[in-house]
């Protein structure tokens, strides 16, 4: 059982440099076909500052840590028992290669379904760029399958 007291728990800020090569790799892995996601010159002809980060790219920011699953270990959640239940993004500003992002996260909600067989935990994250502008917010909800 996850402790309700965890709601509101905050995590250390993560700094993330949006690198061109990383964007190209991510575009390839997600099979992007539009060159604005991997060709800087083309992106510029379309009015973009540089290569554009695709819609779900912010998912990479949270993994930019020595042990990206440490937060689960700290909560006593085995990695093999969780699945991604929901993902929500609110976008304010486009993110480009060269941007410096800062992500702040906290635990949003903890609730259960099916008499505790399924427990849900959501993480709220806020992303700001080098101009201190809020570029996006996300909510990731994980489901813990209890045996």
């Amino acid at each position, binding site marked *: 059982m996850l402790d309700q007291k965890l709601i509101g728990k905050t995590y250390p800020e993560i700094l993330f440099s949006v690198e061109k090569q*990383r964007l190209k*790799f*991510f575009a*390839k*892995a*997600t*099979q*992007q*076909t*539009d060159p*604005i996601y991997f060709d800087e010159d083309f992106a510029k002809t379309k009015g973009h500052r540089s290569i*554009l980060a*695709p*819609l*779900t790219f912010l*998912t*990479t920011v949270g*993994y*930019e840590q020595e042990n*990206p*699953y440490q937060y689960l270990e700290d909560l006593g959640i085995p*990695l*093999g*028992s969780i*699945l*991604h*239940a*929901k*993902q*929500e*993004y*609110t*976008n304010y500003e*486009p993110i480009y290669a060269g941007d410096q992002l800062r992500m702040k996260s906290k635990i949003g909600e903890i609730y259960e379904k099916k008499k505790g067989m399924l427990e849900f935990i959501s993480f709220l994250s806020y992303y700001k760029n080098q101009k201190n502008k809020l570029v996006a917010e996300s909510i990731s909800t994980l489901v813990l399958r209890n045996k």
Partner: protein
Amino acid sequence: MNENIINQYQIGDRIPSLITKPISRSMLALYAGASGDHNPIHIDIDFAKKAGLSDVIAHGMLVMSFIGQAMTNIFPQESIKKFDTKFISMTNINDILTCEGKVIDLELEDSLKRLFLNLLVIDESGDKKLSGSAIIELILKDEK
């Protein structure tokens, strides 16, 4: 991007579906590397079996990126203000996914057109993998 085409979208209209290649192990390994999500449940069959699955499963976020592309194929990415998905069932190796979007509502506000989309990803047998919604804001050009 042809703004006239975008502005033609009305309630009930569907965006062109995106059909993926069959999900493969190398696709998942590549995504694990690119995203930083190295959770072995997506790349290590032994780990997946220990977790009670019969095989590795696709990253939900990879599936989300496919439905995202179905939208960005039509709408400029900057117009997509809200993008929410719910992962309904696991996506397995060899699944071929069809990503669909349908306009369920729209608002006109001065020079702004706001589309509300329902999103759905299904496999070849019609099993739902992901459902979701998006809000798209398009600035209408004054044609006078």
